[in-house]
């Protein structure tokens, strides 16, 4: 009967049959944590048939304090620097046993850009059938906001503070995607929690790959970036719209797609929302100089990936439209 | 330990003296003896002097120490004679077998040590077409010392080679054995402590 198919009933059905949540609610993340959101989106996209190897970091700590666990999928945390190697071992075991379960490795920027880079490189070089997802909150957040190689240029952290002789982190954000690209794996991508459908699509793409895949998920940290937790999505969206965090896809080292930006925002719109960049708004020549540096970095990305577009952008509006319609189930 | 014979094989890195030691030990095993063989441990570049060692005994060999006074030394590469001390340390009454086409007068040798030169490389080139002296040296050695029956070496070669390669090695073995005086070194080297 027609009345059974009205939106009220379908919403009712959805509530009764929620999507499988590999990472369940009740964990101990900060309010507005980009990584928690990212992990939820990623595990929703993956489903139950997975084994996860997770590096030490915020995600591990706030989900697995004994005797509780937020994980509803098989999950192992070993050490800080070896999630890709543990994942390689799980993949080898499943291969020998003929089991088709997918292996996913999760790590923060610390465990991926820095201490785990060697293990990651080995996993990619051997092309293990593993999807590696890095939640990039741009510092060692779990241990109290120390800088990593992923920390953006000029950002303040406890080990790259503003001082009489310093304006935050001296070095540039490590170009990890180029390093990943140099391994010529079948698929690598950047994503962000501000564009959840795009993120889920990229995760699903990575899961379908036979071989190594890598997704870098930009994940705001309200504590470390020093902004209100309610602004996490907006901050993440501005990172994309300024060009500072380009959303790209790579196949075997070649960029094959980029999300275009219809109205490019100046970097100050992004920076001014975050306390970690507040020193750049001082009335001082060094502050102005760093603002210029960051704008130059953004401009470089805009050129390199041809991010500007006047046209209505398929991915961008499709994501928004898809979200309005209630997700990819309905498209 | 009675019945224990210790042998050192001097060669140059990359020329197979460890293989020679293993083959000799395996020949001992084929002849029903207890054996132990090991290289001089450690990294070494190609061409550098290296040694390998063999123990052959009537009783189980349990010791793991170095061989400092071998009864016999086999020198796979005559140019090693230029290395100071290469002929020292041989037990009195022992023997040094040298892979050389030249005579051995004028060598500074320890007192009471027998010496024999065998043109093992030349024989190998003639019979195998390759300059690997091991088979010839070991055949000559076993014949001189009467330490093991030649047939034991034959059995080891049969496990390592087959077909034409085996046939050539066996012919080489017999020729090298024929070029030395059987058993003339028979009484060297047993019956002492390390």
């Amino acid at each position: 009967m027609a009345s059974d198919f009205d939106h009220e009933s379908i919403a009712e059905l959805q509530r009764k049959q929620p999507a499988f949540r590999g990472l369940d609610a009740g964990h101990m993340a900060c309010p507005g944590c980009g990584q928690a959101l990212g992990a939820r989106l990623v595990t929703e996209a993956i489903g139950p048939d997975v084994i996860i190897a997770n590096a030490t970091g915020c995600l591990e700590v706030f989900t697995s304090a004994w005797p509780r666990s937020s994980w509803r999928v098989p999950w192992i945390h070993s050490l800080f620097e070896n999630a890709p190697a543990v994942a390689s071992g799980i993949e080898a075991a499943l291969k020998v046993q003929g089991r088709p379960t997918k292996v996913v490795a999760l790590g923060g920027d610390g465990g991926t850009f820095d201490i785990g880079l060697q293990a990651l490189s080995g996993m990619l070089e051997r092309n293990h059938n593993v999807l590696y997802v890095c939640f990039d909150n741009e510092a060692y957040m779990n241990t109290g906001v120390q800088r990593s190689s992923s920390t953006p240029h000029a950002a303040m952290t406890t080990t790259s503070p503003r001082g009489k002789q310093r304006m935050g982190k001296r070095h540039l954000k490590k170009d990890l995607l180029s390093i990943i690209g140099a391994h010529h794996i079948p698929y690598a991508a950047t994503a962000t929690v501000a564009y959840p459908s795009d993120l889920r699509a990229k995760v699903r793409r990575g899961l379908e790959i036979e071989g190594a895949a890598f997704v870098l998920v930009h994940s705001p940290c309200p504590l470390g970036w020093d902004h209100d937790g309610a602004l996490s999505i907006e901050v993440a969206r501005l990172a994309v719209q300024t060009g500072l965090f380009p959303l790209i896809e790579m196949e075997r080292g070649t960029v094959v797609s980029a999300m275009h930006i219809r109205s490019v925002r100046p970097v100050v719109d992004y920076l001014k929302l975050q306390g970690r960049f507040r020193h750049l708004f001082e009335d001082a020549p060094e502050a102005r100089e760093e603002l210029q540096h960051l704008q130059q970095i953004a401009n470089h990305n805009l050129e390199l990936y041809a991010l500007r577009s006047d046209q209505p952008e398929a991915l961008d509006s499709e994501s928004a439209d898809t979200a309005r319609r209630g997700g990819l189930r309905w498209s | 330990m009675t019945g224990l014979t210790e042998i050192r094989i001097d060669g140059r890195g990359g020329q197979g003296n460890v293989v020679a030691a293993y083959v000799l030990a395996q020949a001992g095993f084929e002849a029903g003896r207890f054996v132990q063989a090991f290289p001089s441990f450690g990294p070494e570049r190609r061409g550098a002097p290296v040694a390998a060692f063999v123990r052959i005994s009537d009783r189980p060999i349990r010791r793991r120490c170095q061989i400092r006074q071998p009864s016999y030394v086999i020198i796979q590469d005559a140019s090693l004679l230029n290395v100071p001390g290469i002929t020292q340390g041989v037990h009195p009454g022992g023997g040094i077998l040298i892979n050389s086409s030249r005579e051995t007068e004028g060598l500074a040798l320890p007192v009471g040590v027998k010496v024999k030169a065998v043109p093992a490389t030349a024989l190998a080139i003639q019979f195998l077409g390759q300059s690997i002296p091991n088979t010839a040296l070991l055949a000559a050695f076993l014949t001189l010392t009467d330490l093991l029956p030649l047939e034991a070496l034959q059995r080891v070669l049969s496990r390592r080679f087959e077909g034409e390669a085996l046939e050539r090695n066996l012919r080489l073995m017999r020729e090298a054995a024929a070029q030395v005086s059987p058993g003339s070194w028979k009484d060297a080297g047993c019956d002492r402590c390390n």
Partner: protein
Amino acid sequence: MIDAIEGSAAVARAVALCRPQVIAAYPITPQTHIVENLAQLIADGKLRCEMVSVESEFSAASVVLGAAASGARAYTASAAQGILLMTEVLYNIAGLRIPLVLTCANRAIGAPVSAWNDQQDSMAMRDAGWIQLYCADNQEAVDTTIQAYRIAERSELPVMVCMDGFTLTHTLEPIDLPTQEQVDSFLPPYRFKRALDPLSPITIGNLVTPEYYSEARYVHHHALLRARAEIAAADQDWARISGRTCGGLVSVDGPEDARVGILSIGSVMGTLYDARDEFPDLGAVKLIKLRSMRPFPAEELQGVCAGLSELIVLERALSPGGGGIVGAEVRAALCEMEPAPRIHNFAAGLGGRDMPLKIYPALLEAAKAPQATRFAILDVDLTKVAEEDR
């Protein structure tokens, strides 16, 4: 079947007989031949196994951790610097109670840089929570490797099989390799109760607060103590199949009424056995072979040392600034014996220094000193040491 083969090749064959499913190793002297032999067996189709050529020892240990946690029997091997590099992972494996077997090809640790045999590497891991068994010869290396899988899988503890690098790994000797049937009758397929499996999802590697940590460590410690029975049983059961024993946790050879004992560990035992035969006029001596360093068999040791008036502990490692490692643990185990033997503790053979037969008379002579030697490096040559450094 008995054959004269290199120790490393024999260990590789023993591992293959245990039907491993995942092997991961990074090359380091003197372990290389073990892994190369395994690679050849796989390449020739004689071993169906996934070999992961990792980019460091840290990853080697991590790969086998992941594999074993997923229900696949796994294997790795390393030595010295490699063991140190994977230290963090070794502690992790043991704390997570994951069954694994690792061969440590005992080698000295830099600095000073050395490629040669001593036992500093495995001794440095004695607190990691692994079972550690030492092999006196290559036959024991084969038999202990096979036993190790059963011990590991029954006790849910990883086992480090220690064999002297070069001295055993690179030495050819007659070794009796068991048949596949013999090994299969002893070692059932690996079934890990806590395997990662989507049909039965669990969380491994939780953060444990002070409220629970002591209990976790208590369980771990007592699991190691209980493993003594598993180690002894594995040796006895394997002896029934193979006809050979490795001497359980600790074993003794010598006249019942001997009042002097020499305790040691690893391949030097062979030299001591032969030396005792070569020097028969030096009196009755018990030769005590310590096989299990972890769990440390304190009670068994007290039994074996009962009646001794002099006990010499000879080891191939030391704790700089402290003294002997095995010596200290032996002293602790025997301190309540009444009467307790005088204990003389020596390290020798460090960095691969040869230990000739004559260390036996040297040790017995040292044990006659009016003052027992608390600790000394037996074979140091002071002419090579500057005056001010003595």
